[in-house]
């Protein structure tokens, strides 16, 4: 049973704050680290993996500080985000080298290659591998010593759906065996499918935490904003404002449009076309103004 403890950890680079006072505890099972680009996921994983010191705060594994202690790598396996590996080696040579550095040998390397189903291409140079194949060889190199903690930075990047399924199965299995598996992603669906627990990080801050139902609820129960243009904005606004599904309407003169905030998403999507029909108003544009993941996340941070 391995637990990673992040205790009020911050990390800055010059005056960029990459991770801002984050505290979380990652235990056995599969945890998803969810956040948009630049949120600080890699920085956080690098601190958990002992490649970066926290500027303030502490990151520890089972009570022992991780930074500058190479013995932690007996427990930890890492799949880095970066592509670079020893391209001049074959997949097999690469995994064997990783095994040897753990004091293990060819047998363990072969087992890890089998686990990620890369035996068929193990004697080709890594330079010739596709992104998904590289990802799987990286995975094999991280698994070779059967670590109790597995840290994966964007492991599904570049994988096709079949490879993605396979890796998800593997990670699920490892989680079920009681290992502590943490992976990062900026795709909610990916995290939902795999993680029993989700940590959301946005702009360096710890935004939310819980199982996927809780995260979903936080995301869907928020007020939705729409930008609406119609043949008669004023009449439409007057007709909508009386309905409880609408929390606020703003007339945006510059845009020549209405900005509508809806609290009851389902009811509003039914209401809008009906009201328009009843008042013979033509809807020209209806666009959600904040459907991007970033705005969903920034909502979470504000909450």
């Amino acid at each position: 049973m391995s637990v990673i403890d992040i205790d009020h950890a911050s990390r800055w680079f010059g005056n960029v704050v990459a991770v801002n006072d984050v505290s979380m505890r990652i235990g056995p099972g599969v945890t998803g680290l969810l956040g948009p680009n630049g949120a600080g996921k890699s920085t956080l994983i690098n601190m958990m993996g002992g490649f970066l010191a926290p500027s303030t705060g502490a990151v520890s594994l089972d009570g022992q500080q991780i930074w500058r202690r190479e013995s932690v790598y007996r427990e930890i396996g890492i799949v880095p985000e970066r592509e670079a590996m020893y391209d001049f080696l074959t997949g097999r040579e690469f995994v064997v080298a990783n095994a040897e550095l753990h004091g293990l040998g060819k047998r363990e390397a072969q087992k890890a290659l089998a686990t990620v189903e890369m035996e068929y291409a193990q004697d080709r140079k890594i330079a010739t591998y596709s992104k998904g194949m590289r990802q799987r060889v990286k995975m094999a190199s991280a698994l070779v010593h059967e670590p109790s903690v597995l840290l994966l930075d964007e492991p599904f990047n570049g994988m096709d759906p079949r490879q993605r399924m396979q890796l998800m199965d593997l990670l699920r299995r490892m989680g079920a065996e009681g290992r502590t598996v943490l992976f990062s992603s900026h795709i909610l669906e990916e995290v939902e499918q795999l993680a029993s627990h989700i940590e959301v990080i946005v702009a360096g801050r710890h935004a939310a935490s819980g199982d996927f139902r809780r995260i979903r609820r936080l995301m869907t129960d928020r007020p939705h904003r729409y930008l609406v243009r119609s043949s008669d904005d004023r009449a439409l606004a007057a007709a909508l404002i009386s309905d409880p599904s609408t929390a606020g309407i703003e007339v945006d003169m510059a845009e020549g449009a209405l900005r509508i905030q809806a609290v009851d998403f389902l009811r509003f999507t039914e209401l809008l076309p009906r009201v328009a029909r009843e008042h013979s108003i033509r809807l020209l544009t209806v666009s959600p103004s904040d459907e991007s993941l970033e705005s969903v996340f920034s909502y979470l941070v504000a909450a």
Partner: protein
Amino acid sequence: MYNPTVARLTYRAVLGRRRAAILFVLPALLLAIAVAVRTFNGVDDQVAADVLGGFALAVMVPLIGVIAGTGAIGPEIDDGSIVYLLAKPVKRPTIIVTKLTVAIAVTMVFSAVPTLIAGFILNGNGQQVAMAYTVAALVASIAYSALFLLLGTVSRHAVVIGLVYALVWETLFGSLVSGARTLSVQQWALSLAERIAGEGLIGSDVGLPTAVALLVGVTAAATWYAGQKLRVLKLAGEE
């Protein structure tokens, strides 16, 4: 303090890169010069000493040292693949010492061996000139490897800085400012060569005890510092 797996990876990294061509080109050039000088000039001990001192020790050894020393670690740090070495329960100083060993071996093989052969071509090791410069090349290989390995660990511009040091500082600056010569690997190596070759053929501005102390001190300090730097190496994110 030596890890065979790290050594294997390092050998393949150093010798497998395109830059490694320089490792073959420079010795070939030295041998070509030696053959040409011998053919057109006959045997002359002073000329032999000048060729080995002016090209082999002053240019070839430091350049090969730059390629091997920085190449043993720099590219791995630049592209981030060093993470696969660092994510292992292997002591950081062990990684450095192993890489240093590889860099020294490569520099010695590609610089001292051709120096010896060129010396024999030039004057058949008369007055021990070939031997003297071979010893100088061996000794310089150690110090250059340590210095350039450190450089490769601390800077992304290690090759450029290394070239500037090797060519501008040691060769150009050293011939103009006498103080610069005291801090020159080449001069330290020459002070050993001076003792081996016949009277008056090779000169150094640094006394032997000082030279030996500096060689040992610089090599040890650079290696220790590189080990410390590797312990706290920050891995940059994806750019």
